[in-house]
């Protein structure tokens, strides 16, 4: 009995230490975003700043074009995510619910588009075909079965896909770096990178901008976490 307690204690210890390693850089960033340039690197670290300097945030929001970039990123994210959800779910429906000879060859193409289609195929397969048969007899067409029967049953998988697609498009850096050149059209990630190269020594505002670039995804993740993990653990990603 005692050994069990020791083992459990050890498990907690490792988990807590590991979680601290994960979170500490964010806490440092958050606290630095409220400090002025002299305070940012002061040691020992003042985790809770004596005075909260909100002017780092007002500087970023008022003096740079971060508002515009933020909006650009939001638009891009919504567009890409919607596109992913629609195209992947339609394709997954074809791969799991419609039988035709070339189907298994076509699925090869999806090898280049990880997660999306495969994740949904796993989910769709689990829905008994009797359900769609019954709907078909009731006169629902194929698209109706997809949109009114299958999709509502797959919320966890769709939540996972939304998180994957939203996070990926929001954080994407290389593609916008290559394709977007005009300043008013940049994404928040590009803006952050230019902020660093143009005002590299303004530590506080840079940290504030970094916080702003991270927060939306953290919020989406926290809102969808339970759905998302259900989606992952019941999908084909398991062993």
């Amino acid at each position, binding site marked *: 009995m005692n050994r069990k307690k020791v083992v459990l204690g050890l498990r907690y210890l490792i988990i807590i230490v590991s979680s601290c390693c*994960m979170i500490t850089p964010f806490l440092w960033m958050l606290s630095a975003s409220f400090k002025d340039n002299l305070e940012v690197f002061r040691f020992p670290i003042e985790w809770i700043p004596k005075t909260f300097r909100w002017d780092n945030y007002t500087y970023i929001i008022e003096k740079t074009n971060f508002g515009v970039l933020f909006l650009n990123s939001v638009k891009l994210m919504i567009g890409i995510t919607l596109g992913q959800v629609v195209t992947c779910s339609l394709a997954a429906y074809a791969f799991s619910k419609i039988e035709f000879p070339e189907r298994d060859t076509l699925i090869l193409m999806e090898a280049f588009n990880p997660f999306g289609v495969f994740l949904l195929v796993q989910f769709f397969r689990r829905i008994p075909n009797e359900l769609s048969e019954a709907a078909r007899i009731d006169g629902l067409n194929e698209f109706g079965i997809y949109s009114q029967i299958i999709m509502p049953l797959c919320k966890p998988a769709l939540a996972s896909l939304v998180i994957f697609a939203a*996070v990926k498009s929001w954080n994407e850096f290389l593609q916008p770096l290559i394709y977007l050149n005009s300043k008013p059209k940049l994404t928040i990630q590009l803006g952050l*990178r230019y902020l660093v190269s143009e005002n590299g020594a303004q530590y506080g505002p840079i940290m504030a901008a970094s916080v702003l670039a991270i927060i939306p995804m953290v919020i989406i993740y926290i809102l969808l976490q339970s759905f998302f993990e259900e989606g992952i653990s019941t999908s084909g990603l398991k062993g």
Partner: protein
Amino acid sequence: MNKAVAKTKRSHAIVRRNRCIGYLFLLPNLLGFFIFSFIPVVCAFILSFMEWDSSNPMKFVGLENFSKLLSDSTFKIALKNTAVYTLGTVPGIVILSMLLAILLNKGIRLASFWRAAHYIPYISSMVAVSIVWQFLFNTEMGPINQFLGMLGIENPPRWLSSTTWAMPSVILVAIWRNVGRYMIIYLGGLQGIPRELYEASTVDGASKLQQFRYITVPMLSSTTFLVTITNIIGSFQVFSSVYIMTGGGPGRATNVLVYLIYQEAFVNSRFGYASAMSVILFAFVFVFTLIQFRGKEKWVHE
């Protein structure tokens, strides 16, 4: 006899109808595949036989770009660095994420909080995270070296500004960022292991360690396969962290393949040469994607 003919006719009609509907459902996805994957890849292949700086007309040069690659020392270093990065990140991520998943699997309070703590690095912008780590790693002012100094370490590593430590630092950040993502996938894998296996082995007197060695690890093998391959493919394509944290330096210490391709194409405007490198990268990614797909097929077809 007539009945049978009618039946095959009907089933032909069904096949035709299904095929038609099937393609209709696949259309948006296939269009996306052609526009965003297929056509760019074909363009890169064609460009790899050309010389092109985007302002002067294209010139066909045959295999010249590829033969130049063979004697390009920077390309060789970039290949080597990419391999080092892959070998550094993949085993670390696989082992750590599996162990963390096992530790977090059952009977832990606040489990969803701990999971979120590990997942947040992965959903955070690589640009933002790289900037933060750049600050943390700062040689003189950074909290890491200040802390090491407090412990009495006199010459702490110069991290991102040292040719020896830059790559390990980049690898460390990659492990830190990705462990949580794969931990979640392993947690899914763990839920697929039937409890009876553990119960039966407990009856047989197996220790926890033996259970880990003979039940958990083998039962997770397909997850491990997936995690390993996805990770390898991802590591080949590392870019943002290098671009932000080191700019490929110091010297060429962290110059990786995608970074070099980016430099050649969009800084030096040597699109043909950069495309030749992309073709090599594509070949690597393609091989591992095929391997992954073979594995995936197994679980897609149950």
